[in-house]
């Protein structure tokens, strides 16, 4: 028995799967990394993700890497509840003591759970923010959803969050559409933190930003993950993002997890043929 103390996991994902189209016998065998496609040749169904298993502890960020269409965002969206899953079990230790599978909650409970516990930062700020609303208003939205009613209290919370995410306070009452890409992403992060979530899902959080802006946003994310002891999942095709934010990661290919490794090990000693190709392409 090892005496190494490791933090308890906050998120436990087992057997997660998402299939678009009819699910028929043999669909799993006819798709995946070894077949070279996620599309079932007999039915045209897409096995976007299948048999995905991992755990994430508080204060830990897990990376998901893979090329476009590998299923990484699908996994994130299934956990967030943005899309319905076809199979699996997802538990949060901080929700009903981990006794409930989030995937089988009724819609109202699920929405409430999402507001209280899980936040998503999307690649496209337009997905996570109302661009025609002010920065302050965008942060007020999840707060009122969680039951905040006092106007001054909401304003104070919004100010605090914008300060933490380094958004100038004199822009608080400007509509988000007037903000630069990097600033929009900071507002999205501020909004994501509004209700002190336990789990933050980051979907390509810096893709599309200039390198210097991206490095500032990454630094901010890293600091916040540490400060609030958040459990996080970071989806990115950019290894420098994964390297900066995570200690462990999984590699997805045609809807399947093909490797599960320490991040430095994946970069220096990848095992799966696809991981080796991915890493050498990124290093070239």
């Amino acid at each position, binding site marked *: 028995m090892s*005496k190494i103390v490791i933090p308890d996991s906050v998120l436990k994902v087992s057997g997660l799967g998402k299939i678009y189209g009819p699910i028929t016998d043999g669909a799993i065998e006819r798709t995946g990394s070894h077949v070279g496609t996620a599309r079932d040749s007999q039915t045209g169904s897409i096995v976007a993700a299948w048999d995905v298993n991992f755990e994430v502890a508080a204060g830990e960020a897990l990376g998901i890497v893979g090329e476009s269409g590998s299923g990484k965002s699908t996994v994130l969206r299934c956990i967030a509840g943005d899309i319905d899953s076809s199979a699996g079990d997802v538990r949060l230790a901080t929700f009903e003591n981990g006794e409930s599978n989030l995937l089988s909650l009724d819609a109202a409970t699920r929405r409430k759970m999402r507001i209280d516990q899980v936040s998503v930062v999307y690649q496209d700020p337009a997905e996570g923010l109302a661009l025609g609303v002010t920065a302050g208003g965008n942060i007020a939205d999840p707060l009122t959803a969680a039951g905040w009613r006092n106007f001054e209290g909401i304003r104070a919370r919004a100010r605090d969050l914008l300060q933490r995410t380094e958004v100038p306070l004199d822009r608080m009452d400007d509509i988000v559409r007037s903000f630069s890409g990097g600033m929009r992403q900071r507002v999205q992060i501020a909004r994501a933190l509004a209700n002190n979530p336990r789990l933050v899902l980051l979907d390509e959080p810096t893709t599309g930003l200039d390198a210097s802006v991206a490095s500032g946003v*990454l*630094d901010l994310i890293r600091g916040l993950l540490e400060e609030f002891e958040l459990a996080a999942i970071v989806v990115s095709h950019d290894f420098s993002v994964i390297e*900066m934010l995570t200690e462990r990661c999984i590699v997805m290919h045609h809807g399947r997890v093909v490797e599960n*490794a320490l991040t430095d090990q994946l970069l220096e*000693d990848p095992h799966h043929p696809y991981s080796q*190709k991915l890493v050498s392409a990124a290093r070239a």
Partner: protein
Amino acid sequence: MSTAIATKPILDVRDLTKSFVLHNIDGRTVTGLHNVSFAVAPGQHLALAGTSGAGKSTLLRAIYRTYAPSSGEVWFRLSDDSVVNLAQISDPEIVALRGRQIGYVSQFLRAQPRRSVLDLVIRAGVSRGMNVADARELGILSLRRLNIGEQLWDVHTSVLSGGEKQRVNIAAGLISPPRLLLLDEPVSALDPENRESAIQLISELTHQGVAVLAVFHDLDAIARLATQIVVMQKGRIINNGPVDQILPLLHPGDVQP
């Protein structure tokens, strides 16, 4: 198990082998380490010698699990005196040991470009379980010892010179002494004066009982720091003994990077 050995080594490596299967280069297998066995006790400083490609850095990485060992055992003694096999324990367990009980300092700074020098060192301490005030105090102490002046503390690490980066790296790596310290050419880019301070610091850690496994590219550093020398060739250990026995047999060419 390692408990049978009287000196109770902190690190006990047995038959460690590391092969790389290169799937995209005709599936060939390259073996970097062949059945490597040795042990390091508390307060011992074991220097790895051998020409370029002998497997020195590969060995450090296989112990730290940056490379996944292919076979063999890597027994590591925890602070409660129990032992774990680093080649077998889970990834989260490795993450928990890294930085806290096993330190790794290389010639390259793996730092975030926008982080300031002092912040980087403080965070290294905090990640090892220190509170911010202690980490700050100790961080400032080790930065001063390595001649990183106050004017550089709030500067981003990306603008530092190679030698400055290396010293910041050492300060961050040593802020809270681990039980096992892996050093991969930690003083290679330093000028004589700074090299001297770094060597002093490493020597003190050894005296405090840290087990050190190091690669240096000059015989002088080995002569001053090592208690034991392991000579490697083509991924195998060809000699292992006390520094006074092995050092006279070495030529400068035997420790080239």
